[in-house]
């Protein structure tokens, strides 16, 4: 087990942030819903490795991500299709398109595995960015835990607003998945994005709730809940989104 701790830093990290990060990090090595622990760690390791890919660097500089031919520099543990998914999400997320996603599907990508891999990738991105911001080395990836994925697809999942299938908040009321929307009948689209694999949604939104804030706190300007103000939080959030060319 990798123990997430920031005790040696001069800057205090809130306990709830540490707990959410520990939960998300520990899950990386465990059997998931569609990926084994071995596969999840392979995805996590490739997400880290992607930063050094020459093809990705050249593609990012090109007017079109398809203008440069070649192969990704990868660790060799995953299929090319999975490597393409991971590298593009890590290195050029702002230019992902429905056509790209459909191309992966046509080539054999399995939607549930794709969404779970997104959950793994963004967990690594989140924690690696955090440690970099605070001047620390990245945390070691956790050990693999044995076991088989559960392969439980929520019955109400269907293709609706996104490229991937999602769970509509109104349709999960009273089901085992209703907690992912806090029992509400509506939810922001971003909260629905990973809902095809509810465990990924729960884990990632644990980070959201504690590193950003709860949805109900976003417009409650009377009460500041962090060491920086709402306006300062939103300025930083907007800047990071813009640097990534994200329109959401």
């Amino acid at each position, binding site marked *: 087990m990798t123990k997430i701790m920031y005790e040696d830093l*001069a*800057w*205090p*990290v*809130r306990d709830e942030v540490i707990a959410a990060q520990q939960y998300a990090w520990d899950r990386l090595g465990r059997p998931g819903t569609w990926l084994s622990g071995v596969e999840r760690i392979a995805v996590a390791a490739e997400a880290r490795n992607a930063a050094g890919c020459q093809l990705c660097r050249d593609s990012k500089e090109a007017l079109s991500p398809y203008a440069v031919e070649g192969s990704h520099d990868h660790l060799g543990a995953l299929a090319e299709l999975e490597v393409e*998914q991971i590298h593009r*999400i890590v290195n050029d*997320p*702002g*230019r*992902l398109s*429905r056509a790209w*996603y459909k191309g992966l599907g046509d080539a054999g990508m399995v939607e549930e595995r794709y*969404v779970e891999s*997104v959950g793994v*990738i*963004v967990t690594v*991105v*989140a924690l690696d*960015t*955090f440690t*970099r*911001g*605070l*001047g620390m080395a990245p945390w070691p990836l956790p050990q693999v835990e044995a076991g088989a994925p559960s392969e439980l697809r929520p019955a109400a999942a269907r293709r609706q*607003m*996104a490229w*991937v299938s*999602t769970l509509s908040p109104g349709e999960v009321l009273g089901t085992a998945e209703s907690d992912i929307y806090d029992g509400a009948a509506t939810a*922001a*689209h*971003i909260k*629905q*994005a990973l809902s095809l694999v509810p465990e990924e949604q729960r884990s*990632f939104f644990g980070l*959201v709730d*504690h*590193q950003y804030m709860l949805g109900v706190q*976003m417009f409650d*300007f009377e009460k500041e809940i962090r*060491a*920086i103000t*709402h*306006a*300062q*939080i*939103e*300025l*930083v*959030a*907007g*800047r*990071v989104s*813009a*640097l*990534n*060319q*994200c*329109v*959401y």
Partner: protein
Amino acid sequence: MLALRASAQYDGREIDLSVVTAADDGIGDGGGGGGIANGEELIRFANAVLGHDEAELAAARTAIAGTLGGAALADTAGVVSLFNAIVRVADSTGIPVEEQRAADSADFRAAIGVDDFAAAGEKGSG
């Protein structure tokens, strides 16, 4: 950015949203901060974390800790890292911007260049 604008309106402050999309000139300039307290230091830090200049990142980190304090630095790192991840959730799953949100933000999205991002047309912003 709707929440950024709303927070400024709540305080009765004038802010310049264009600092969010302004080009990073690479000299550690936060672009004036847009009228947000310590905005320059915060933008500088966000730029540095996502950049590749280790000396600049160290300087940006020191600037936040020196002006806002250590807890603020940790919380700012939390926001930077969370949004560096959440943009990838949005962009890789193809979720569209909510219609109401797109309508409410249409004026400044066009003005500050968000509608010029590659994915704008496909994801409901442009």
